[in-house]
């Protein structure tokens, strides 16, 4: 079992295995994303309270969900890297950080663009917005630690610990709309009873969320391949591979 994990998590094996994965993930992300956009912009009905402005949801909510999901991937792979010293896990964590940061940024800015017409302000220091901003800073802190420490193993350990400690922020973001009186609206999809959303709005939202997830999978594989090349630059498999390019 252990040997099996070691072999399949070897950067060399990952490097060649990821090629077809990237191809199919990117194609499905594109197709599902386009279909979701079509349904979201042309088919979904106008909201009776928010008019057309609610269509920002099809970007805003998937981006916000992904900013949390990518953070959990980053923290869990950091943990796997620290505990079992699987190098590929450290590479996945390092590859995830900039992608997650971009999703957090997108969620914050689209939220701000949605807040202005609905609440009358681009920004309020409300619990949901503030905790999401802290998430962006955690991503940036992870990236800063990665690039500040020259020794790769120390860099992975330090930034990995930051990622793991920062997990405490994830439930705070999720439950912020229940724990505090926030301006931000409560959950509409992830409630235990039926989602309080029209099915013609819910379907494009879920399709866009799926497309974002597939997109992340594509990009994280591309970035992890680069990490593998760079970190193994003195190993034979990379040298032989680069000589042929």
């Amino acid at each position, binding site marked *: 079992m252990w040997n099996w994990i070691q072999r399949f998590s070897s950067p060399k094996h990952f490097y060649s295995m990821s090629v077809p994965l990237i191809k199919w993930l990117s194609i499905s992300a594109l197709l599902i994303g386009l279909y979701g956009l079509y349904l979201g912009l042309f088919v979904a009905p106008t909201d009776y309270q928010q008019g057309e*402005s609610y*269509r920002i949801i099809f970007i805003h909510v998937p981006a916000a969900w992904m900013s949390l999901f990518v953070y959990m991937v980053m923290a869990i792979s950091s943990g796997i890297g620290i505990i079992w010293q699987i190098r590929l896990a450290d590479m996945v964590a390092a590859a995830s950080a*900039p992608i997650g940061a971009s999703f957090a940024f997108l969620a914050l800015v*689209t939220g701000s*663009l949605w807040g202005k017409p609905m609440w009358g302000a681009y920004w309020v220091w409300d619990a949901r917005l503030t905790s999401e901003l802290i998430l962006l800073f955690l991503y940036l802190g992870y990236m800063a630690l990665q690039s500040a420490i020259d020794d790769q193993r120390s860099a992975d350990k330090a930034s990995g610990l930051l990622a793991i400690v920062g997990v405490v922020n994830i439930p705070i973001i999720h439950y912020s709309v229940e724990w505090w009186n926030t301006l931000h609206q409560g959950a509409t999809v992830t409630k235990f009873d039926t989602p309080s959303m029209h099915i013609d709005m819910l379907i494009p939202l879920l399709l866009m969320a799926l497309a974002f997830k597939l*997109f992340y999978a594509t*990009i994280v594989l*591309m970035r992890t391949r680069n990490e593998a090349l760079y970190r193994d630059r003195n190993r034979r498999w990379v*040298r032989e591979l680069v000589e042929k*390019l």
Partner: protein
Amino acid sequence: MNWSEFFNMGGYAFYVWSSYALALVIILANIVSPLMQRKKVIKRIKRTLKREQLEREQL
């Protein structure tokens, strides 16, 4: 529904289209960035390989 009505987004055009435009920019940046990173890494490794070859030839 005609196209000008569609682009007007019930008066929320600026907010809606800015959001979608930013999403497009961030998606493109996420695609371009690893492609450039890959070129840079390969270039750097190639340079090292070439330098080592030169050193071997000088010996």
